[in-house]
Protein backbone atom coordinates (compact mmCIF):
# COMPACT_ATOMS: atom_id res chain seq x y z
CA UNK A 1 0.00 0.00 0.00
CA UNK A 2 1.55 3.35 -0.98
CA UNK A 3 1.12 6.58 0.91
CA UNK A 4 1.95 10.21 0.16
CA UNK A 5 5.44 11.01 1.38
CA UNK A 6 4.15 13.40 4.03
CA UNK A 7 2.14 10.57 5.66
CA UNK A 8 4.89 8.00 5.80
CA UNK A 9 5.57 8.75 9.44
CA UNK A 10 1.89 8.12 10.21
CA UNK A 11 1.70 4.77 8.45
CA UNK A 12 3.82 1.69 8.72
CA UNK A 13 3.15 -0.90 6.09
CA UNK A 14 4.24 -4.22 7.48
CA UNK A 15 5.72 -6.93 5.29
CA UNK A 16 3.03 -9.37 4.20
CA UNK A 17 3.18 -12.02 6.91
CA UNK A 18 0.56 -14.20 5.30
CA UNK A 19 -0.46 -14.54 1.64
CA UNK A 20 -3.42 -12.41 0.69
CA UNK A 21 -3.32 -10.22 3.80
CA UNK A 22 -1.68 -6.79 4.02
CA UNK A 23 -1.31 -5.02 7.36
CA UNK A 24 -0.82 -1.29 7.82
CA UNK A 25 -0.10 0.21 11.22
CA UNK A 26 -1.55 3.72 11.28
CA UNK A 27 -2.29 6.56 13.64
CA UNK A 28 -5.93 7.45 14.25
CA UNK A 29 -5.92 10.34 11.77
CA UNK A 30 -4.70 8.05 9.03
CA UNK A 31 -7.18 5.40 10.16
CA UNK A 32 -10.02 7.79 9.43
CA UNK A 33 -8.61 8.84 6.10
CA UNK A 34 -7.80 5.31 4.95
CA UNK A 35 -11.22 4.02 6.03
CA UNK A 36 -12.78 6.71 3.87
CA UNK A 37 -10.51 5.88 0.94
CA UNK A 38 -11.09 2.17 1.14
CA UNK A 39 -14.84 2.30 1.57
CA UNK A 40 -15.72 5.25 -0.66
CA UNK A 41 -13.04 5.43 -3.31
CA UNK A 42 -11.81 1.89 -3.68
CA UNK A 43 -15.14 0.15 -3.07
CA UNK A 44 -13.64 -2.16 -0.49
CA UNK A 45 -15.94 -4.23 1.71
CA UNK A 46 -15.74 -3.89 5.48
CA UNK A 47 -15.23 -7.45 6.72
CA UNK A 48 -14.71 -6.74 10.42
CA UNK A 49 -13.76 -4.24 13.10
CA UNK A 50 -12.59 -5.28 16.56
CA UNK A 51 -10.25 -4.22 19.35
CA UNK A 52 -7.62 -5.86 21.50
CA UNK A 53 -5.97 -4.74 24.72
CA UNK A 54 -2.97 -2.46 24.27
CA UNK A 55 -2.03 -1.59 27.86
CA UNK A 56 -3.48 0.90 30.29
CA UNK A 57 -6.39 2.82 28.88
CA UNK A 58 -5.57 1.90 25.27
CA UNK A 59 -6.82 -0.58 22.73
CA UNK A 60 -5.62 -1.62 19.30
CA UNK A 61 -8.35 -1.23 16.72
CA UNK A 62 -8.17 -3.56 13.74
CA UNK A 63 -10.27 -2.71 10.70
CA UNK A 64 -10.37 -5.54 8.17
CA UNK A 65 -11.28 -4.56 4.63
CA UNK A 66 -11.77 -7.08 1.82
CA UNK A 67 -10.54 -6.06 -1.62
CA UNK A 68 -12.40 -8.89 -3.33
CA UNK A 69 -11.35 -8.06 -6.89
CA UNK A 70 -7.69 -7.94 -5.84
CA UNK A 71 -8.06 -11.16 -3.83
CA UNK A 72 -6.67 -9.74 -0.62
CA UNK A 73 -7.57 -8.41 2.79
CA UNK A 74 -6.18 -5.21 4.27
CA UNK A 75 -5.94 -4.88 8.04
CA UNK A 76 -5.57 -1.36 9.42
CA UNK A 77 -4.16 -1.42 12.96
CA UNK A 78 -4.38 1.67 15.12
CA UNK A 79 -3.79 2.22 18.85
CA UNK A 80 -6.60 4.23 20.39
CA UNK A 81 -5.92 5.82 23.75
CA UNK A 82 -8.58 7.06 26.12
CA UNK A 83 -12.29 6.58 25.69
CA UNK A 84 -12.89 8.15 22.28
CA UNK A 85 -12.18 6.60 18.89
CA UNK A 86 -12.54 7.83 15.31
CA UNK A 87 -16.19 7.71 14.18
CA UNK A 88 -15.66 5.06 11.54
CA UNK A 89 -19.34 4.29 11.06
CA UNK A 90 -19.86 7.84 9.86
CA UNK A 91 -17.61 6.95 6.95
CA UNK A 92 -18.74 3.35 6.59
CA UNK A 93 -22.15 2.40 8.09
CA UNK A 94 -21.08 -1.24 8.00
CA UNK A 95 -18.93 -0.54 11.09
CA UNK A 96 -21.70 0.54 13.47
CA UNK A 97 -22.53 -2.76 15.17
CA UNK A 98 -18.84 -3.41 15.76
CA UNK A 99 -18.40 0.06 17.29
CA UNK A 100 -21.21 -0.84 19.69
CA UNK A 101 -19.45 -4.10 20.59
CA UNK A 102 -16.19 -2.29 21.26
CA UNK A 103 -18.01 0.21 23.47
CA UNK A 104 -19.34 -2.61 25.65
CA UNK A 105 -16.03 -4.44 25.69
CA UNK A 106 -13.61 -1.54 26.20
CA UNK A 107 -15.70 1.48 27.08
CA UNK A 108 -14.39 3.28 23.97
CA UNK A 109 -17.00 5.06 21.89
CA UNK A 110 -16.87 7.10 18.66
CA UNK A 111 -15.88 10.72 19.14
CA UNK A 112 -18.99 12.04 17.38
CA UNK A 113 -21.05 11.18 20.47
CA UNK A 114 -23.75 9.29 18.58
CA UNK A 115 -26.09 7.02 20.54
CA UNK A 116 -24.79 3.48 20.80
CA UNK A 117 -26.82 0.28 20.88
CA UNK A 118 -26.23 -2.45 23.38
CA UNK A 119 -25.50 -5.62 21.40
CA UNK A 120 -23.53 -8.06 23.56
CA UNK A 121 -25.18 -8.49 26.98
CA UNK A 122 -28.61 -7.62 28.32
CA UNK A 123 -29.01 -4.54 30.54
CA UNK A 124 -28.84 -5.25 34.24
CA UNK A 125 -27.37 -8.70 33.88
CA UNK A 126 -24.11 -7.72 35.56
CA UNK A 127 -22.26 -10.28 33.56
CA UNK A 128 -18.60 -9.70 33.93
CA UNK A 129 -16.52 -11.60 31.50
CA UNK A 130 -13.37 -9.64 32.04
CA UNK A 131 -13.83 -7.06 29.35
CA UNK A 132 -12.43 -3.73 30.47
CA UNK A 133 -15.56 -1.85 29.45
CA UNK A 134 -17.95 -3.76 31.64
CA UNK A 135 -18.62 -2.00 34.91
CA UNK A 136 -17.15 1.30 33.73
CA UNK A 137 -19.14 4.47 33.69
CA UNK A 138 -19.00 4.31 29.93
CA UNK A 139 -21.40 1.36 29.74
CA UNK A 140 -24.04 1.75 27.02
CA UNK A 141 -26.72 3.91 28.60
CA UNK A 142 -29.50 3.03 26.22
CA UNK A 143 -30.65 -0.37 25.05
CA UNK A 144 -31.55 0.87 21.62
CA UNK A 145 -30.97 3.95 19.54
CA UNK A 146 -34.09 6.06 20.07
CA UNK A 147 -36.73 6.27 17.41
CA UNK A 148 -40.13 7.90 17.50
CA UNK A 149 -43.33 5.89 17.44
CA UNK A 150 -46.07 8.34 16.56
CA UNK A 151 -49.61 8.51 15.29
CA UNK A 152 -51.45 5.23 15.06
CA UNK A 153 -48.36 3.08 15.35
CA UNK A 154 -47.71 0.80 18.29
CA UNK A 155 -44.67 -1.11 19.34
CA UNK A 156 -44.92 -4.57 20.77
CA UNK A 157 -42.37 -7.14 21.83
CA UNK A 158 -41.99 -10.66 20.51
CA UNK A 159 -39.66 -13.12 22.21
CA UNK A 160 -37.04 -13.87 23.30
CA UNK A 161 -38.81 -17.09 24.18
CA UNK A 162 -40.35 -18.23 20.92
CA UNK A 163 -41.64 -21.46 19.46
CA UNK A 164 -40.12 -24.73 20.59
CA UNK A 165 -36.66 -25.22 19.16
CA UNK A 166 -36.23 -21.64 17.93
CA UNK A 167 -33.24 -19.75 19.25
CA UNK A 168 -33.85 -16.99 21.78
CA UNK A 169 -34.33 -13.76 19.88
CA UNK A 170 -36.16 -10.61 20.93
CA UNK A 171 -37.99 -8.73 18.21
CA UNK A 172 -39.40 -5.26 18.74
CA UNK A 173 -42.12 -4.73 16.13
CA UNK A 174 -43.48 -1.31 15.27
CA UNK A 175 -46.76 -1.54 13.44
CA UNK A 176 -50.07 0.08 12.65
CA UNK A 177 -51.70 -3.29 13.16
CA UNK A 178 -50.49 -5.53 10.36
CA UNK A 179 -47.82 -3.79 8.31
CA UNK A 180 -44.31 -3.76 9.72
CA UNK A 181 -43.16 -0.15 10.00
CA UNK A 182 -39.97 -0.88 11.89
CA UNK A 183 -38.27 -3.78 13.59
CA UNK A 184 -35.25 -4.22 15.81
CA UNK A 185 -33.58 -7.30 17.24
CA UNK A 186 -31.81 -8.13 20.47
CA UNK A 187 -29.86 -11.37 20.41
CA UNK A 188 -27.94 -10.90 23.63
CA UNK A 189 -29.97 -13.54 25.49
CA UNK A 190 -27.75 -16.17 23.94
CA UNK A 191 -24.45 -14.41 24.63
CA UNK A 192 -21.90 -16.88 25.97
CA UNK A 193 -18.73 -14.80 26.06
CA UNK A 194 -16.90 -17.33 23.92
CA UNK A 195 -14.16 -14.95 22.76
CA UNK A 196 -13.28 -14.18 26.35
CA UNK A 197 -13.57 -17.76 27.60
CA UNK A 198 -11.12 -19.09 25.02
CA UNK A 199 -8.26 -16.88 26.25
CA UNK A 200 -5.57 -19.08 27.77
CA UNK A 201 -6.72 -22.29 26.09
CA UNK A 202 -4.67 -24.38 23.73
CA UNK A 203 -5.56 -24.11 20.04
CA UNK A 204 -6.78 -27.72 20.03
CA UNK A 205 -9.22 -27.06 22.86
CA UNK A 206 -10.23 -23.71 21.35
CA UNK A 207 -11.12 -25.42 18.05
CA UNK A 208 -13.39 -27.78 19.95
CA UNK A 209 -15.40 -24.81 21.23
CA UNK A 210 -15.26 -22.78 18.02
CA UNK A 211 -16.92 -25.70 16.21
CA UNK A 212 -19.72 -25.71 18.76
CA UNK A 213 -20.10 -21.95 19.19
CA UNK A 214 -22.39 -21.88 16.17
CA UNK A 215 -23.07 -25.54 15.54
CA UNK A 216 -24.69 -25.28 12.12
CA UNK A 217 -21.45 -23.67 10.89
CA UNK A 218 -19.06 -26.04 12.61
CA UNK A 219 -16.94 -26.53 9.51
CA UNK A 220 -17.22 -22.92 8.28
CA UNK A 221 -16.11 -21.38 11.57
CA UNK A 222 -13.75 -24.24 12.42
CA UNK A 223 -12.03 -23.95 9.07
CA UNK A 224 -11.58 -20.19 9.49
CA UNK A 225 -9.99 -20.93 12.86
CA UNK A 226 -7.64 -23.55 11.42
CA UNK A 227 -6.63 -21.19 8.64
CA UNK A 228 -5.87 -18.43 11.14
CA UNK A 229 -3.75 -20.81 13.21
CA UNK A 230 -1.95 -22.16 10.15
CA UNK A 231 -1.35 -18.63 8.90
CA UNK A 232 0.22 -17.78 12.26
CA UNK A 233 2.45 -20.84 11.85
CA UNK A 234 3.20 -20.12 8.20
CA UNK A 235 2.12 -23.61 7.16
CA UNK A 236 -0.44 -25.21 4.87
CA UNK A 237 -2.37 -28.44 5.42
CA UNK A 238 -1.48 -31.45 3.27
CA UNK A 239 -3.40 -31.63 0.00
CA UNK A 240 -5.53 -34.68 0.95
CA UNK A 241 -6.60 -32.89 4.12
CA UNK A 242 -7.45 -29.74 2.18
CA UNK A 243 -9.75 -31.79 -0.03
CA UNK A 244 -11.34 -33.51 2.97
CA UNK A 245 -11.97 -30.12 4.57
CA UNK A 246 -13.57 -28.80 1.40
CA UNK A 247 -15.84 -31.83 1.12
CA UNK A 248 -17.00 -31.33 4.70
CA UNK A 249 -17.59 -27.63 4.03
CA UNK A 250 -19.68 -28.35 0.94
CA UNK A 251 -21.69 -31.04 2.76
CA UNK A 252 -22.38 -28.45 5.45
CA UNK A 253 -23.55 -26.01 2.82
CA UNK A 254 -25.86 -28.57 1.23
CA UNK A 255 -27.64 -29.55 4.43
CA UNK A 256 -27.95 -25.98 5.64
CA UNK A 257 -29.50 -24.75 2.40
CA UNK A 258 -31.87 -27.74 2.47
CA UNK A 259 -32.89 -26.86 6.02
CA UNK A 260 -33.50 -23.25 4.97
CA UNK A 261 -35.82 -24.33 2.16
CA UNK A 262 -37.72 -26.54 4.60
CA UNK A 263 -38.02 -23.62 7.00
CA UNK A 264 -39.42 -21.41 4.23
CA UNK A 265 -42.06 -24.08 3.52
CA UNK A 266 -42.94 -24.22 7.21
CA UNK A 267 -43.27 -20.43 7.30
CA UNK A 268 -45.62 -20.37 4.32
CA UNK A 269 -47.70 -23.18 5.80
CA UNK A 270 -46.96 -25.62 2.98
CA UNK A 271 -46.69 -28.69 5.21
CA UNK A 272 -46.46 -31.18 2.39
CA UNK A 273 -43.55 -29.28 0.86
CA UNK A 274 -41.89 -28.98 4.24
CA UNK A 275 -42.21 -32.73 4.76
CA UNK A 276 -40.74 -33.45 1.33
CA UNK A 277 -37.71 -31.26 1.97
CA UNK A 278 -37.24 -32.51 5.52
CA UNK A 279 -37.05 -36.08 4.27
CA UNK A 280 -34.09 -34.99 2.16
CA UNK A 281 -32.63 -33.09 5.12
CA UNK A 282 -32.75 -36.18 7.32
CA UNK A 283 -31.10 -38.22 4.57
CA UNK A 284 -28.34 -35.60 4.29
CA UNK A 285 -27.71 -35.57 8.04
CA UNK A 286 -27.44 -39.37 7.99
CA UNK A 287 -25.02 -39.05 5.08
CA UNK A 288 -22.92 -36.65 7.17
CA UNK A 289 -22.85 -39.27 9.93
CA UNK A 290 -21.85 -41.98 7.48
CA UNK A 291 -19.25 -39.81 5.71
CA UNK A 292 -17.61 -38.11 8.69
CA UNK A 293 -19.02 -39.71 11.83
CA UNK A 294 -21.23 -36.88 12.99
CA UNK A 295 -24.57 -35.57 11.73
CA UNK A 296 -23.41 -31.97 12.13
CA UNK A 297 -19.80 -32.63 11.13
CA UNK A 298 -18.24 -32.01 14.53
CA UNK A 299 -14.81 -33.44 15.11
CA UNK A 300 -13.66 -33.47 11.48
CA UNK A 301 -11.11 -30.66 11.60
CA UNK A 302 -7.74 -30.61 13.31
CA UNK A 303 -5.10 -27.89 13.43
CA UNK A 304 -2.98 -28.52 10.39
CA UNK A 305 -5.37 -30.96 8.74
CA UNK A 306 -8.27 -33.27 9.50
CA UNK A 307 -8.96 -36.00 12.04
CA UNK A 308 -10.77 -38.24 9.62
CA UNK A 309 -11.20 -38.73 5.91
CA UNK A 310 -14.62 -38.91 4.27
CA UNK A 311 -16.18 -42.30 3.57
CA UNK A 312 -16.09 -42.13 -0.21
CA UNK A 313 -18.40 -45.07 -0.75
CA UNK A 314 -21.09 -43.48 1.39
CA UNK A 315 -20.87 -40.22 -0.52
CA UNK A 316 -20.77 -41.89 -3.93
CA UNK A 317 -23.70 -44.11 -3.08
CA UNK A 318 -26.03 -41.48 -1.68
CA UNK A 319 -25.20 -37.82 -2.32
CA UNK A 320 -26.39 -37.62 -5.91
CA UNK A 321 -29.67 -39.34 -5.05
CA UNK A 322 -30.39 -36.93 -2.19
CA UNK A 323 -29.50 -33.83 -4.18
CA UNK A 324 -31.64 -35.00 -7.12
CA UNK A 325 -34.58 -35.52 -4.77
CA UNK A 326 -34.11 -32.01 -3.37
CA UNK A 327 -34.20 -30.55 -6.87
CA UNK A 328 -37.39 -32.53 -7.62
CA UNK A 329 -39.09 -31.23 -4.49
CA UNK A 330 -37.86 -27.71 -5.29
CA UNK A 331 -39.33 -28.01 -8.76
CA UNK A 332 -42.67 -28.84 -7.20
CA UNK A 333 -42.35 -25.92 -4.79
CA UNK A 334 -41.60 -23.46 -7.57
CA UNK A 335 -44.72 -24.67 -9.40
CA UNK A 336 -46.97 -24.23 -6.39
CA UNK A 337 -48.42 -20.78 -6.91
CA UNK A 338 -49.72 -20.34 -3.38
CA UNK A 339 -46.18 -20.90 -2.11
CA UNK A 340 -44.35 -18.78 -4.69
CA UNK A 341 -46.79 -15.92 -4.11
CA UNK A 342 -45.54 -15.72 -0.51
CA UNK A 343 -41.92 -15.53 -1.63
CA UNK A 344 -41.94 -13.04 -4.48
CA UNK A 345 -41.42 -9.43 -3.45
CA UNK A 346 -41.26 -10.50 0.21
CA UNK A 347 -38.40 -9.39 2.41
CA UNK A 348 -36.80 -7.32 -0.32
CA UNK A 349 -33.30 -5.99 0.25
CA UNK A 350 -32.48 -3.14 -2.11
CA UNK A 351 -29.46 -3.81 -4.26
CA UNK A 352 -27.30 -1.23 -2.46
CA UNK A 353 -27.81 -2.77 0.99
CA UNK A 354 -25.09 -5.47 0.78
CA UNK A 355 -22.50 -2.83 -0.02
CA UNK A 356 -23.76 -0.37 2.60
CA UNK A 357 -23.93 -2.91 5.44
CA UNK A 358 -21.12 -5.28 4.44
CA UNK A 359 -23.36 -8.31 3.94
CA UNK A 360 -22.01 -11.67 2.88
CA UNK A 361 -23.21 -15.04 1.60
CA UNK A 362 -26.46 -15.99 -0.17
CA UNK A 363 -28.23 -12.92 1.22
CA UNK A 364 -25.75 -10.65 -0.56
CA UNK A 365 -25.67 -12.78 -3.69
CA UNK A 366 -29.46 -12.66 -3.95
CA UNK A 367 -29.07 -8.89 -4.34
CA UNK A 368 -26.63 -9.25 -7.19
CA UNK A 369 -23.46 -8.87 -5.07
CA UNK A 370 -21.34 -11.73 -6.37
CA UNK A 371 -19.18 -12.23 -3.31
CA UNK A 372 -17.75 -15.61 -2.46
CA UNK A 373 -14.57 -15.95 -0.43
CA UNK A 374 -13.88 -19.34 -2.01
CA UNK A 375 -13.32 -17.55 -5.32
CA UNK A 376 -12.30 -14.09 -4.12
CA UNK A 377 -9.79 -15.17 -1.43
CA UNK A 378 -9.04 -18.73 -2.46
CA UNK A 379 -7.24 -21.30 -0.38
CA UNK A 380 -6.56 -24.90 -1.40
CA UNK A 381 -8.35 -26.56 -3.08
CA UNK A 382 -10.50 -23.64 -4.28
CA UNK A 383 -7.50 -22.11 -6.02
CA UNK A 384 -7.80 -25.00 -8.46
CA UNK A 385 -11.47 -25.92 -8.04
CA UNK A 386 -13.05 -22.53 -8.64
CA UNK A 387 -16.72 -22.52 -7.69
CA UNK A 388 -19.33 -20.90 -9.93
CA UNK A 389 -20.93 -18.09 -7.94
CA UNK A 390 -24.73 -18.06 -8.04
CA UNK A 391 -26.52 -14.71 -7.92
CA UNK A 392 -29.95 -13.20 -8.39
CA UNK A 393 -31.16 -9.64 -8.78
CA UNK A 394 -34.47 -9.18 -6.95
CA UNK A 395 -33.23 -9.42 -3.36
CA UNK A 396 -36.42 -11.10 -2.17
CA UNK A 397 -37.12 -14.43 -0.46
CA UNK A 398 -37.52 -16.18 -3.81
CA UNK A 399 -34.12 -14.91 -4.95
CA UNK A 400 -32.45 -16.21 -1.81
CA UNK A 401 -34.08 -19.59 -2.27
CA UNK A 402 -32.98 -19.75 -5.91
CA UNK A 403 -29.39 -18.89 -4.96
CA UNK A 404 -29.38 -21.63 -2.34
CA UNK A 405 -30.68 -24.23 -4.80
CA UNK A 406 -27.99 -23.28 -7.31
CA UNK A 407 -25.34 -23.51 -4.60
CA UNK A 408 -26.47 -27.01 -3.62
CA UNK A 409 -25.89 -28.17 -7.20
CA UNK A 410 -22.48 -26.49 -7.33
CA UNK A 411 -21.46 -27.99 -3.97
CA UNK A 412 -22.42 -31.44 -5.23
CA UNK A 413 -20.18 -30.92 -8.25
CA UNK A 414 -17.26 -29.74 -6.12
CA UNK A 415 -17.52 -32.77 -3.86
CA UNK A 416 -17.40 -35.28 -6.68
CA UNK A 417 -14.54 -33.43 -8.41
CA UNK A 418 -12.22 -34.00 -5.46
CA UNK A 419 -13.55 -37.04 -3.64
CA UNK A 420 -10.77 -39.36 -4.80
CA UNK A 421 -8.08 -36.94 -3.67
CA UNK A 422 -9.27 -36.58 -0.10
CA UNK A 423 -7.64 -38.30 2.85
CA UNK A 424 -6.76 -38.00 6.51
CA UNK A 425 -3.58 -36.07 7.25
CA UNK A 426 -2.30 -33.21 9.37
CA UNK A 427 0.83 -31.09 9.53
CA UNK A 428 1.66 -30.24 13.16
CA UNK A 429 1.28 -26.53 13.84
CA UNK A 430 2.61 -25.00 17.05
CA UNK A 431 2.92 -21.26 16.53
CA UNK A 432 3.94 -19.05 19.40
CA UNK A 433 3.85 -15.27 19.79
CA UNK A 434 2.14 -14.96 16.42
CA UNK A 435 -1.05 -13.68 14.85
CA UNK A 436 -3.12 -14.87 11.93
CA UNK A 437 -6.28 -14.06 10.00
CA UNK A 438 -8.39 -16.94 8.70
CA UNK A 439 -11.54 -17.18 6.65
CA UNK A 440 -13.90 -19.67 5.02
CA UNK A 441 -17.14 -19.44 3.05
CA UNK A 442 -19.62 -20.96 5.48
CA UNK A 443 -23.18 -21.71 4.33
CA UNK A 444 -24.20 -18.23 5.51
CA UNK A 445 -21.25 -16.44 3.99
CA UNK A 446 -17.70 -15.44 4.86
CA UNK A 447 -16.68 -16.50 8.34
CA UNK A 448 -13.66 -14.63 9.68
CA UNK A 449 -11.35 -15.37 12.62
CA UNK A 450 -8.35 -13.46 13.87
CA UNK A 451 -6.22 -14.84 16.64
CA UNK A 452 -3.12 -14.01 18.61
CA UNK A 453 -1.04 -16.61 20.44
CA UNK A 454 1.13 -16.02 23.47
CA UNK A 455 4.65 -17.26 24.19
CA UNK A 456 3.30 -20.67 25.24
CA UNK A 457 1.24 -21.01 22.08
CA UNK A 458 -2.06 -20.52 23.91
CA UNK A 459 -4.83 -18.19 22.79
CA UNK A 460 -4.09 -14.60 23.84
CA UNK A 461 -6.99 -13.08 21.90
CA UNK A 462 -9.57 -14.59 19.58
CA UNK A 463 -11.89 -12.63 17.35
CA UNK A 464 -14.75 -14.86 16.19
CA UNK A 465 -16.84 -13.31 13.41
CA UNK A 466 -19.35 -15.80 11.92
CA UNK A 467 -21.29 -14.68 8.85
CA UNK A 468 -24.44 -14.16 10.93
CA UNK A 469 -22.74 -11.23 12.71
CA UNK A 470 -22.61 -9.31 9.44
CA UNK A 471 -26.02 -10.29 8.12
CA UNK A 472 -28.39 -9.88 11.08
CA UNK A 473 -28.09 -6.09 10.71
CA UNK A 474 -29.98 -6.31 7.39
CA UNK A 475 -33.02 -8.06 8.88
CA UNK A 476 -34.82 -4.86 9.78
CA UNK A 477 -34.37 -3.51 6.25
CA UNK A 478 -35.83 -6.71 4.81
CA UNK A 479 -38.73 -6.67 7.27
CA UNK A 480 -39.63 -3.06 6.58
CA UNK A 481 -40.03 -3.43 2.82
CA UNK A 482 -43.83 -3.43 2.73
CA UNK A 483 -44.26 -6.63 4.67
CA UNK A 484 -46.83 -7.81 7.18
CA UNK A 485 -46.48 -9.86 10.35
CA UNK A 486 -46.86 -13.20 8.68
CA UNK A 487 -43.98 -12.37 6.36
CA UNK A 488 -41.51 -12.15 9.25
CA UNK A 489 -41.04 -15.94 9.69
CA UNK A 490 -40.67 -16.33 5.92
CA UNK A 491 -37.99 -13.65 5.82
CA UNK A 492 -36.21 -15.12 8.82
CA UNK A 493 -36.24 -18.58 7.21
CA UNK A 494 -34.86 -17.19 3.95
CA UNK A 495 -32.05 -15.42 5.83
CA UNK A 496 -31.35 -18.71 7.68
CA UNK A 497 -28.95 -17.06 10.09
CA UNK A 498 -28.16 -18.26 13.58
CA UNK A 499 -28.60 -16.31 16.78
CA UNK A 500 -25.66 -18.29 18.13
CA UNK A 501 -23.52 -16.87 15.33
CA UNK A 502 -24.37 -13.35 16.39
CA UNK A 503 -24.44 -13.83 20.17
CA UNK A 504 -21.15 -15.60 20.61
Amino acid sequence: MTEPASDLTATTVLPETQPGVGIARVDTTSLTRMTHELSSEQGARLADLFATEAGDDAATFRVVYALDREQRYVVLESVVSGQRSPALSQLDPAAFVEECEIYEQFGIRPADGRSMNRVLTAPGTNRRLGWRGQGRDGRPDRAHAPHLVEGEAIEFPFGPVRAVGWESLYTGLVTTGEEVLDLYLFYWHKHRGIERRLVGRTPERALFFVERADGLNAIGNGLAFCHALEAAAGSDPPAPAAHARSIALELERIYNHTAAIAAVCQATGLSVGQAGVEIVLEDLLRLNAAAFGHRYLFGVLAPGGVRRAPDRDAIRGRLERHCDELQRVAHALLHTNSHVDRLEATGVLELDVPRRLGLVGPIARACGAELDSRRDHPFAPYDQLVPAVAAAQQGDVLSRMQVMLAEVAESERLIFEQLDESGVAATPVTPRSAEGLGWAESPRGESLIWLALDDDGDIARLRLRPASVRNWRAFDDAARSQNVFTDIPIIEASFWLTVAGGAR
Partner: protein
Amino acid sequence: MTLWFLRGLRTGIVTTRYPAELDAWTETLPAPPRFRPELLTEQLADGLVDVCPFGALAREGDELVVDLGACTSCGLCVEHGAGAVVPGTVFELASPRRELLVKRVPIRGGP
Protein backbone atom coordinates in the same frame (compact mmCIF):
# COMPACT_ATOMS: atom_id res chain seq x y z
CA MET B 1 -52.04 -29.71 -5.21
CA THR B 2 -52.41 -32.74 -7.48
CA LEU B 3 -48.69 -32.90 -8.04
CA TRP B 4 -48.09 -33.04 -4.28
CA PHE B 5 -50.63 -35.83 -3.95
CA LEU B 6 -48.88 -37.82 -6.69
CA ARG B 7 -45.47 -37.11 -5.11
CA GLY B 8 -46.76 -38.44 -1.84
CA LEU B 9 -47.95 -41.65 -3.44
CA ARG B 10 -44.62 -42.08 -5.19
CA THR B 11 -42.54 -41.38 -2.08
CA GLY B 12 -44.59 -43.65 0.12
CA ILE B 13 -44.22 -43.92 3.87
CA VAL B 14 -40.79 -43.07 5.25
CA THR B 15 -41.71 -43.35 8.92
CA THR B 16 -39.77 -46.23 10.51
CA ARG B 17 -40.84 -48.65 13.23
CA TYR B 18 -38.66 -46.99 15.88
CA PRO B 19 -38.82 -47.50 18.87
CA ALA B 20 -40.18 -50.94 18.12
CA GLU B 21 -36.98 -51.54 16.14
CA LEU B 22 -33.75 -49.61 16.09
CA ASP B 23 -33.03 -48.06 12.71
CA ALA B 24 -29.92 -49.70 11.25
CA TRP B 25 -28.25 -46.40 10.48
CA THR B 26 -28.03 -45.56 14.19
CA GLU B 27 -25.26 -48.08 14.73
CA THR B 28 -22.62 -45.47 13.90
CA LEU B 29 -24.09 -42.63 15.92
CA PRO B 30 -21.88 -41.17 18.65
CA ALA B 31 -22.92 -42.40 22.09
CA PRO B 32 -21.57 -41.98 25.64
CA PRO B 33 -18.46 -44.14 26.19
CA ARG B 34 -17.98 -47.37 28.07
CA PHE B 35 -15.21 -47.76 30.60
CA ARG B 36 -13.04 -50.79 31.30
CA PRO B 37 -12.36 -50.74 35.04
CA GLU B 38 -9.43 -53.14 34.89
CA LEU B 39 -7.53 -50.78 32.59
CA LEU B 40 -8.53 -47.59 34.38
CA THR B 41 -5.73 -46.26 36.57
CA GLU B 42 -5.98 -43.39 39.04
CA GLN B 43 -3.61 -41.29 36.96
CA LEU B 44 -5.62 -41.96 33.80
CA ALA B 45 -8.86 -41.19 35.61
CA ASP B 46 -7.50 -37.82 36.74
CA GLY B 47 -6.40 -37.10 33.18
CA LEU B 48 -9.82 -37.96 31.81
CA VAL B 49 -11.46 -35.61 34.31
CA ASP B 50 -9.25 -32.81 32.95
CA VAL B 51 -9.91 -33.70 29.33
CA CYS B 52 -13.72 -33.68 29.51
CA PRO B 53 -14.93 -30.23 28.40
CA PHE B 54 -18.40 -30.70 29.90
CA GLY B 55 -17.65 -31.76 33.46
CA ALA B 56 -19.18 -35.17 32.88
CA LEU B 57 -16.33 -36.95 34.68
CA ALA B 58 -15.28 -36.64 38.30
CA ARG B 59 -13.03 -38.60 40.60
CA GLU B 60 -14.33 -39.74 44.00
CA GLY B 61 -11.79 -41.88 45.78
CA ASP B 62 -11.42 -45.14 43.89
CA GLU B 63 -14.33 -44.43 41.59
CA LEU B 64 -14.73 -42.46 38.39
CA VAL B 65 -18.12 -40.79 38.43
CA VAL B 66 -19.65 -40.54 34.96
CA ASP B 67 -22.58 -38.18 34.51
CA LEU B 68 -24.33 -39.33 31.34
CA GLY B 69 -26.63 -36.34 31.59
CA ALA B 70 -23.67 -34.02 31.03
CA CYS B 71 -21.93 -36.17 28.42
CA THR B 72 -22.30 -35.01 24.80
CA SER B 73 -20.55 -38.03 23.26
CA CYS B 74 -17.78 -35.81 21.96
CA GLY B 75 -15.29 -38.67 22.07
CA LEU B 76 -12.40 -36.82 23.71
CA CYS B 77 -12.21 -39.29 26.60
CA VAL B 78 -12.09 -42.18 24.13
CA GLU B 79 -9.26 -40.44 22.30
CA HIS B 80 -7.25 -39.95 25.50
CA GLY B 81 -8.38 -43.12 27.25
CA ALA B 82 -5.51 -45.41 26.23
CA GLY B 83 -7.90 -48.29 25.70
CA ALA B 84 -9.62 -47.92 29.05
CA VAL B 85 -12.42 -45.96 27.37
CA VAL B 86 -14.15 -47.33 24.30
CA PRO B 87 -16.94 -45.93 22.12
CA GLY B 88 -20.38 -46.77 23.46
CA THR B 89 -23.38 -47.82 21.41
CA VAL B 90 -26.28 -46.94 23.67
CA PHE B 91 -27.89 -43.58 23.04
CA GLU B 92 -31.33 -44.35 24.44
CA LEU B 93 -30.60 -42.91 27.85
CA ALA B 94 -33.86 -41.29 28.88
CA SER B 95 -34.40 -41.78 32.58
CA PRO B 96 -37.26 -40.92 34.95
CA ARG B 97 -34.84 -39.49 37.53
CA ARG B 98 -31.74 -37.41 37.01
CA GLU B 99 -29.63 -39.40 39.46
CA LEU B 100 -30.07 -42.56 37.41
CA LEU B 101 -27.85 -41.01 34.76
CA VAL B 102 -24.87 -40.82 37.12
CA LYS B 103 -22.77 -43.98 36.96
CA ARG B 104 -19.83 -45.04 39.10
CA VAL B 105 -16.92 -46.90 37.54
CA PRO B 106 -14.45 -48.62 39.92
CA ILE B 107 -10.80 -47.81 39.27
CA ARG B 108 -9.09 -51.22 39.29
CA GLY B 109 -5.98 -50.52 37.22
CA GLY B 110 -3.92 -49.28 40.11
CA PRO B 111 -2.20 -45.92 40.56
